[in-house]
């Protein structure tokens, strides 16, 4: 395996981070732990104990997050509201729906853009402008407007994911659809191939590597979009809701649990896209590296 050489350096970095984290907990938690340390009579043992095991720490120690995750993931049935898995599923479902919608929109726009100079000029400024608006500013408006139309729950959140993730797909696919060589385009011209034949037999297959590069970005920001979409609604479920409830109530452990869950989901989703990429490219006969 190629990865085996990397194991030791990676573990070393992890270990260093953990040590720094534990040490940092002591001064950072001093504010909340001071009284308890004094009550326990001071000293190193009491300081460490209180800094690393406070119920509402400023920065929880790593083992506290592990315990929090254990309690909310494995110790509770996944369909209960207190289960982190339940909230993950709520966010994941809206992420995936938004991703599918965003990718479809992104590919559709790219196809329009590469086929028409006028559409390219008309659409591109709007597409780029759409990404300069902070999502935190536009998300509440989307949620509120759609809510007033009677649309709540999954769809408004998915639309925010879609809004974020169509962009890299459009940009990547415009490049990908335009990637075939002049020779290939001339070749299709000598066959008198129609635009749709050129699209299906040349442009789309040629764009697949570009598509996957975009999909990896898109899936990660679709997740961010779903979480952001859960914030302004005062949503009662989803990773975003856990972050919100945690910060309202000073439950740092809940926040950290949700953060870890979000990162694990993001990593899994990106890995899945990478896996699909490898499978697809192998089937398309790409020369093994």
């Amino acid at each position, binding site marked *: 395996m190629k990865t085996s050489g990397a194991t030791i350096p990676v573990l070393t970095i992890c270990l260093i981070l953990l040590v720094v984290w534990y040490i940092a907990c002591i001064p950072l938690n001093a504010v909340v732990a001071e009284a308890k340390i004094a009550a326990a009579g001071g000293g190193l043992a009491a300081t460490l104990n209180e800094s690393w095991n406070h119920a509402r720490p400023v920065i929880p120690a790593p083992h506290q997050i592990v315990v929090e995750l254990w309690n909310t993931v494995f110790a509770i049935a996944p369909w209960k509201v207190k289960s982190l898995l339940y909230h993950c599923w709520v966010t994941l479902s809206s992420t995936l729906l938004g991703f599918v919608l965003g990718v479809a929109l992104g590919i559709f726009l790219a196809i329009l853009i590469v086929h028409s100079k006028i559409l390219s000029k008309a659409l591109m400024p709007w597409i780029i402008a759409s990404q300069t608006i902070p999502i935190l500013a536009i998300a509440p408006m989307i949620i509120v407007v759609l809510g007033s139309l009677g649309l709540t729950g999954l769809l408004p959140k998915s639309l925010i994911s879609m809004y974020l993730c169509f962009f890299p797909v459009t940009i990547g696919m415009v490049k990908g659809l335009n990637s075939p060589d002049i020779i290939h385009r001339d070749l299709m011209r000598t*066959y*008198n191939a129609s635009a749709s034949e050129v699209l299906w037999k040349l442009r789309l*297959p040629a764009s*697949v590597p570009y598509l996957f590069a975009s999909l990896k970005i898109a899936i990660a920001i679709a997740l961010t979009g779903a979480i952001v979409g859960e914030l302004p609604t005062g949503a009662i479920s989803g990773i975003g809701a856990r972050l919100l409830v945690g910060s309202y109530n000073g439950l740092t452990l809940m926040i950290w649990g949700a953060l870890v869950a979000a990162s694990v989901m993001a990593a899994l989703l990106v890995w899945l896209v990478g896996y699909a990429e490898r499978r697809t490219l192998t089937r398309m006969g790409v020369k093994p590296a």
Partner: protein
Amino acid sequence: MAATVIEAKDLSLTFQTADSPVYALSKVNLTVEDGDFVSFIGPSGCGKTTLLRVIADLEQATSGLITVNGMTPQQARLARAYGYVFQAPGLLPWRTVDRNVALPLEIMGLEGAAERVRRNLDLVNLGGFEKKFPWQLSGGMQQRVSIARALAFDPKLLLMDEPFGALDEIVRDKLNQQLLELWARTKKTVVFVTHSIPEAVFLSTKIVVMSPRPGRIIDVIETGLPRDRMLDIREAPEFLKIAHRVREGLKAGHSYED
């Protein structure tokens, strides 16, 4: 007398560039007859590829007349009158060899694709390589696949733009011999662009010597060599005589530049 396949009269093509116009073709007159093997030879910039592209309707002439099978190049292209082989093989990397050869058949919706693919791969001696991807083949094999692809829909006319230019001389000799056999067997009309004198003399029934700035024809040589020639004809005196005339023509075309 054989039927005329390509006829050009006073054909000119000028590219408008930012600073000054480029006279790619100037007053070109040319006749290609059915069954001919015609080579365009000349230094780069002499318009030989441009002329081929005008025949293929990949470029449009600025003035003059040109017909392909008695039609305009556009009508001929729409009638799928010719197969075109480019400088690079231009195979689609995600398609196996057989599916690359089948590409024009799919687009044209022709019957009996499997049989046509098999027959044309046999013609370029690539039977058995159907399921390989292009990267698994050598450069010479890839170019042979692209020839099979150009022949797949059985066009009467084969247009080849320096197809062996990127290959080494040994492979090139072999492919020249194979191309000649293929031409003899299929009775196609071939228009072939090259900048190699031995290649042009060896392959052609007619050599069109061209010169740059402006791109024009300075000599047309009927070679008259026997059709079933072998590579060693290149040592024969009549071969060397033709090669000499081509070289003289190229030299003359160069005389008043630089």
